[in-house]
């Protein structure tokens, strides 16, 4: 079933997109974080550039860390950001 998911961006991902968050529609075939990335990469060259190298990205589903292969399930929020550098 089609639904939408909120995506939030941080650090250089946010800056390069010029966007803090957005809602995107996802079809029933979109099951994993990787699938969401494929949707994003198809949007524009800028998106493709930013989301192609998953090694440089980290993900959280409803504020819990996930991997590209993680199933999004019923998650309402997907966060995409570079490796953290706090502390």
């Amino acid at each position, binding site marked *: 079933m089609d639904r939408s998911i909120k995506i939030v961006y941080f650090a250089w991902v946010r800056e390069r997109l010029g966007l803090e968050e957005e809602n995107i529609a996802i079809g029933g075939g979109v099951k994993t974080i990787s699938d969401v990335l494929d949707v994003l990469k198809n949007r524009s060259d800028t998106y493709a550039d930013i989301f192609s190298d998953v090694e440089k990205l980290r993900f*959280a589903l409803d504020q819990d860390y996930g991997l590209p292969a993680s199933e999004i399930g019923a998650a309402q929020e997907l966060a995409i*950001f*570079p490796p*953290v*550098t*706090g*502390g």
Partner: protein
Amino acid sequence: MIRVEVGPADFDIGAESAKVAGQGGGAISSFVGQVRDDGNLETLELEHYPAMTQKALLEIAETARSKWSLHAITIVHRVGKLTVGDNIVLVVTGSDHREAAIESCSFIMDRLKTVAPFWKKETRIDGKTKWIEERASDVEASEKWNA
């Protein structure tokens, strides 16, 4: 008692240490991280993921409490625009034993660096900006606790 605080406000290490000490035990370990002067740093901006930060810090503290016998844990992490010499992060742990206090403080710092959703952006004196990159040594330091 676990206390986690995230915000732009500075912290008082003496007051935070006294609060932890007041929870019992005779061993209090603290770590303070500040913006380091490397000669041409103008500002350091700390961004975070508000919906996740508190939860991530609480999880780190809970893990520390399950690994060591602790009376209290305090984690304070600042966000926003900071400059050279400013405080960034404070961790205080209290225990009956110094090994537990010191090791848990070290553990919390290692996890903070690699798990808590904060990002640092430098602005140099010449106006150039740069997002700080993850350090391999931080990842190794954090992973050693899983051994």
